[in-house]
Structures are given as structure tokens and as C-alpha cells.
């Protein structure tokens, strides 16, 4: 099976590199976008198995990226996992209600993040 490609979107380069290195360690192909605008450009040009997206970013935040994905006829069922320092209940609920497949709070437990990503991808494979 070809390696699944995951898009990591985070304006904090260190976090993006950490998540990317974790995913590469487990044989995923990873592309990194440093903001929402860059992410949407990459989504037009590449095919991804899922998106791991930060919430608070310049230009377009995670909610905006999520909405753009859900409203796009080609991408609307692309799994999105939100990662954020915002741990308030209303942010988590809003993220899930806007269509995120999962929500992880920073600082995150890397193994837990990986498990959640694997679960989302397994669910996607099962559906398709």
C-alpha cells in the first residue's frame, strides 16, 4: 500500500516539525503548511489522506480552513483533526460541530495524537 499523505498545518514551525517527524517515523508522507492560506493552496495541488490543523493561525484560522474544506465539493469528506491550545469547552464543541473529526489540546501527548490519526485514517479506509 502506498504511504498515506498527511497535511500538517501550523504557524508554529517547531510544533509542525514535531508532528511531521512523528508521522514520518510511522511511514506517513507529510507536507507542512505554515498558515491556512498555504494549506488551501496545497490542498488544491495535492491529494491528502487527512489534515492535522492548528486552530489559531494568521490570515485564515483553523475554523476557516475547516469550513473551506467542508464546503469544497471535492474535499468535503477529507478528515480533519484540529490541534489547539484552546482548551475551552466552547472551542472544542465548535470545532467538532463545524465538522472536525477530532480535537486535540496542546501540549499534546504524541502517542495519543498518533493513535487518533490512525483511528481516523482507519475509519476513512473502512468507509471508502
Amino acid at each position, binding site marked *: 500500500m502506498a504511504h498515506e499523505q498527511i497535511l500538517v498545518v501550523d504557524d508554529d514551525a517547531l510544533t509542525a516539525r514535531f508532528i511531521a517527524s512523528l508521522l514520518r517515523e*510511522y511511514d506517513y508522507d507529510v507536507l507542512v503548511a505554515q498558515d491556512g492560506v498555504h494549506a488551501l493552496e496545497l490542498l488544491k495541488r495535492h491529494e491528502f489522506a487527512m489534515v492535522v490543523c492548528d486552530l489559531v493561525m494568521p490570515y485564515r484560522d483553523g475554523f476557516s480552513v475547516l469550513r473551506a474544506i467542508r464546503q469544497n465539493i471535492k474535499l468535503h469528506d477529507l478528515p480533519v483533526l484540529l490541534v489547539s491550545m484552546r482548551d475551552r469547552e466552547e472551542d472544542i464543541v465548535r470545532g467538532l460541530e463545524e465538522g472536525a473529526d477530532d480535537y486535540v489540546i*496542546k501540549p*499534546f*501527548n*504524541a502517542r495519543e495524537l498518533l493513535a487518533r490519526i490512525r483511528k481516523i485514517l482507519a475509519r476513512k479506509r473502512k468507509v471508502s
Partner: protein
Amino acid sequence: MQQVLIWIIFAISGIFLVLTTLIIVNKAWRETQEATIARRRKELEPKILSWVHGDEKTVRKAFGENFSTSDTGVIEQILLDHVQRVRGIERDRLAQAMDQLGLVDGYLDGLNSRRWWRRAESAEKLGLSTTKRAIQPLSRALDDEIHEVRLRAAKALGMLGDAASALKLVRALNEPSRWSTIRVADILIGMGHKSVDAVIEAFPGLTREGQLAVLDIVGRVRLVSVTPWLVEKTKDESTDIRARAFHALGSIGDPSVTPELQAALNDKEWPVRAMAAKALGRMRITEAIPQLAKALRDEQWWVRHNAGRALRAMGPLGLYALERLVADGDVFAREQAILMLEEAGRVDERAAELVHEGPDERRVAKSLLEKIVASGTTGRLRVLSREHPVADVRRELSALLPEEVAS
């Protein structure tokens, strides 16, 4: 003379030339250093992260032959950057790498430095290193002569996050500055339930400020098991302790303390009455509505304010109680009740009911609004008589309001 001037000009030019050259050389050297560090970081970071994600015990194996002691600074920065961003196994492995590379030993030495900023920096890094070896040295640093070092040591102990470090940290609640006490209390709150046993144990030996901070901490951590201890504190002879204990009980929200809270509405000290009223509101204890209605006539503004807010927080039953108080003989109770009804949107609702199709609803609404008009607190009604979207409501309100007010 001319010759001298020429020499002076040459000398000054020479000095400028030398200074410019020094600046350029220094900048070039710094940029080269930064480029070297960035290049080494780019090479080393993936290796370190790969080791962090794996199971290999020794971090040096991650670098193989490709490691020189001059890389220590770069590696330290990589480890410190990432250790703040993750939790769990990965964080433990980053901390383990810091220990294996001798960085933790360096920070422990740094705590004894003569330079205070080095001590402060070392304390902060020890917090990030999460090593249990740091608990004793950091605890000693809580007595440092420099305030900044003490605070960073406190923060570091908070980051170590276990009961042993909480025990050491509690002492810092005795800091003479109130601001420091608040910061330390925040750190202990951040440690959650692990700090609770330690702060309770330390309570008798703390200053009054420290004791008040402990009551805030247990209230914010919200462990129901602390309720009996807090109830005991509500019997303290100090007004501040009693008041803060009731506040904490309201935050925890254990309904078993309802009788104590109701009784506290009759305490001889107003801060205790005020906090008891606030707690009853937070817990929405509707059986306390009669006492809260009585507290609306309290001689102290703060008690009336909290009682009003408590009634408002209780939903329909509380709002009915407030409606009954708009014709109260006590002018302060009346004003507080009307203010709460306005804030809750009840005055607007009743105004809209003036044109309700049901005659009972119209009668109830009119009766309440007439009482409000009679009280003289007609600010909101005047606004509605001008701006309500329904013309019939505006007309009814204008008819209720005295002519000079309606105009």
C-alpha cells in the same frame, strides 16, 4: 596649524574606519555563527526527534559519530524548544536526553551561580527538565535573595508537578508580596488535585495571606473531598477565613453544605454574608430563596448585590422572588430587584406581555410594571416606550409611565 588640522582629520577618519571595520567583522562573525547553528540544527533536530519517537535508550546513539561537544548548545535549544510542546512519553524522553547529555547537572550547578540571572535561568530550565533530582535544590531556591529567582523556582516546582514538589512550593505562599502569593497560588492551582493535600497540611503554619490563598486554591481545584475541611474553616474566628471558605464551598458546589450556607446569611460580619449569598447563587439552591430575598434588605450593599445576583441565577423561581420585591418597603431591596429583573430581560418580557392575547398574562405584566413605575426606577421602561418594535407595546408603556417621564 593647517598641518595639525589635517592630522586630526586623518586620525578621526582612521578611528571611524577601524570602528566600521570592527562592526562589519563582528556582524559577519555573528551571521556566520547563526548560519552554522541553523545548519547544525537542521541536521541534528530530525535525529533527536527520531530518537524521541523511538525506544533507543542512549541519546548519543542518535548522533552516531556525528557529535561534537560544540553541538551541545544547539542540542540544548532543540530539547528545550520541544519539551514545552509535548506531554507524555515524548516529553519524558526529551527530559531524559537532557539528563543524559549532562544539561541537568549544568542547571543544578547554575542554581549556585553568583549571577542571579543564571540562577533564574537554571531554575526555569530545571522545571522543563522534569527531573525529580531538582526538587530539593529548587526548594532551596525558594529562599533566594532575588525575587525573580524565587518565582522561577516556584514555577519550576509547579512544572515538576508532583505532590513532593507541591509540598515544597506551599512554603512560597508565605512570600511577603501579595502579588507573589497570587502567582504561587496560580502555580499550585495549575498542579490540580496533587497540590491539595500539601496546601491543607501547610495551612496552620502559613501567614494570613497564605491561608487565604490556600482557601482559593482548594476552591479552584474543586475537590468534593475537601468539603468537610472547608466547613471546619467556616467556623474560624477570622472573618476573612470564614468568607473565603464559603466562597470556596460555592465553587466546589457540594449541596450537602446548604444548611451552613443558609445559616451564614445571618453571620454578624457582612463579608461572610456576601460570600454565602454568592455561593448559594452559584449552586442554585432554590430552597434558600426566602433567605436570599431577606438578604436583599441587608444593610451592606455588597450583600444585597450578591443576593440579587443569586436570585437571578436561580431561574424562574428566583425571578418570581425578585418580582415580589419590586414593591418592597426597603428602597435598596426594590432597586436591586428591579436592576436584576432588567439585567435578566424580565422587564422586557413583561413589557411585551402587555399586549399578550391572554388576559391573565396582561394583568400580571401590568401589575408588575405599575409597581416598577411606582418605585421610580423607570429607566428601562422609558427606553422601551420609545424603542420597542411593537407599536402597541410602546403605547401601553407610555400610558403606564407618568407623563413627564414618558415624554
